[in-house]
């Protein structure tokens, strides 16, 4: 069994390596999409020619494409993502200073989503077709339809501006997490609630649950003690599939709430035409996504032996 698992992990890893290689290649190619001369775009039309030559050399743009690619690959493998044009410091250092903040926000948002969505989905399933279910379904539908770049400002209007309960930006205490985490986690919570509801309804029809009910267990106890555990497998699947939207959601959420993470750094770098920093942020987010998908697949295989035998 252990051998099967290791074979599965090795096979999955072997599939990931070419994808990562492709991601690095695409990120390298990005700077060559800049219309005209990237150095000119960064320094502006009136930049002195000497400065342009110096920046081209610093970015390696004066070298043949093959050499540039080789240097980039070697650099990435050594954790060297180039130098930020704006800060004059290594890109990896700028990212490292902010990645923790983004991870904190993403984790808190996902925890919020699960803590909010699972009870909402269970309540919807228990009261299927009743007004409580209608309300729960309405809430989750609204969560899916509301874009986070709208929900964030609306939450700020209500809870920061009108009620004055929560800060609208910054970091430092748990109160600073509330609005960004709810904004980031709302769509995930909505989707998770819908899946939980559908999954619990399905599970409630299973014989073992009906047997538990026949023994006199109430519907809610039957859900909590029996159905919920099996219902959570599709929920884990959804959480895995939604990692991507959480990661890209951080870009918008951090911008709205001035959260000092990688997402905000990316937008600032774009506005400043700091192309090496843009490339570094994109590479980090995409690589994180690929590796997290790998981790999720391995966890599935561990949870469900049918996957590793297929």
């Amino acid at each position: 069994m252990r051998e099967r698992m290791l074979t599965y992990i090795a096979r999955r890893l072997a599939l990931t390596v070419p994808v990562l290689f492709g991601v690095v290649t695409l990120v390298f190619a990005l700077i060559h999409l800049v219309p005209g001369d990237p150095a000119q775009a960064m320094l502006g039309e009136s930049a002195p020619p000497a400065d342009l030559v110096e920046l081209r050399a610093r970015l390696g743009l004066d070298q043949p494409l093959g050499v540039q690619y080789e240097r980039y690959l070697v650099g990435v493998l050594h954790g060297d993502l180039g130098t930020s044009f704006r800060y004059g410091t290594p890109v990896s250092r700028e990212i490292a200073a902010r990645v923790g903040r983004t991870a904190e926000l993403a984790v808190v948002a996902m925890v919020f989503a699960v803590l909010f969505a699972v009870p909402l989905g269970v309540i919807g399933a228990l009261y299927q077709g009743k007004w409580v279910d209608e309300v729960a379904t309405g809430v989750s539908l609204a969560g899916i339809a509301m874009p986070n770049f709208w929900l964030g400002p609306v939450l700020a209007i209500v809870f920061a501006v009108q009620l004055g309960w929560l800060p609208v930006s910054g970091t430092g205490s748990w109160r600073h997490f509330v609005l960004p985490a709810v904004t980031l986690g709302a769509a995930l919570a909505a989707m998770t609630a819908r899946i939980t509801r559908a999954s619990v309804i399905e599970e409630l029809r299973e014989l073992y649950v009906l047997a538990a009910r026949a023994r006199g267990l109430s519907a809610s106890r039957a859900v909590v003690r029996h159905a919920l555990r099996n219902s959570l497998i599709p929920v884990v699947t959804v959480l895995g599939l939604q990692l991507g939207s959480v990661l890209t959601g951080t870009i918008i959420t951090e911008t709205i709430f001035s959260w000092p993470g990688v997402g905000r750094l990316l937008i600032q770098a774009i506005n400043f035409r700091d192309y090496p920093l843009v490339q570094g942020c994109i590479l980090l987010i995409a690589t994180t996504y690929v590796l997290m998908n790998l981790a999720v697949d391995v966890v599935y295989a561990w949870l469900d032996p049918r996957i590793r035998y297929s």
Partner: protein
Amino acid sequence: MMRRVGIAIVGLMVIAAVVGPWIAPDDPFTQHLSQRLGGMSWRHPLGLDELGRDEMARLFAGARLSLLVGVVVVGLSASIGTIVGAVAGYFGGWPDEVIGRLMDVLLAFPGILLAIALVAMLGPSLSNVIWALVVIGWVGYARLVRGQALRVRELDYVQAARALGASSARIILRHVIPATLPAVIVQGTLGMAGVIIAEASLSFLGLGVQPPAPSWGTMIDAGRSHLFDAPHLTIVPGLAIALVVIGLNFAGDELRDRIDPRKAS
């Protein structure tokens, strides 16, 4: 019932986009600086924005832009994805391998990250947003069509066409692609909601349509500076996006059930 409401919302959006200039006769670009942030009135039912422009006229112009981007991006993505997916699925072998690896790499970028990256490099503009969304959009259609093409190529009538000497191009165009179209149309309807949100997201981040052109994303972004004194500038375009997304999802569900009753929920 909800699905009919959804279809009605989409219909209203199309009507608003088409006849908007007659419903809200003010020009969406004309500024009345003396009346900036003016409240709701008979003349300006949704008030005036931070530069004194009629909010309703801008909302309708934004609907036109969203619809345009949605139709163009879905149309181009679906066309490219259908052809590429049909070729990969029908031929298999190395074309399928090459296309499959390319799709793997593009799918390694979560959500609109690649679109953000592309627009960041190409520069913010409507046409660059459209191209960036097509680059990330065609993959979904290609995957869908590839799967369908793998099934269709084994069907008797396709085998018969091959036995009669029909060329691969003819079989793909006359038999494989038509068989996959219903699924593509449903995915296109559902995908349009995602495209509209993606365009608004990029515009919100300052990477899409540039002011003064009215996009729902730029309107929300501009409204953020007036959360205290004019919250409706943020709330109204956001509600429009949410309603259209719900409407398109319901319309897509209805279309799916009509096209393929076996999947009716």
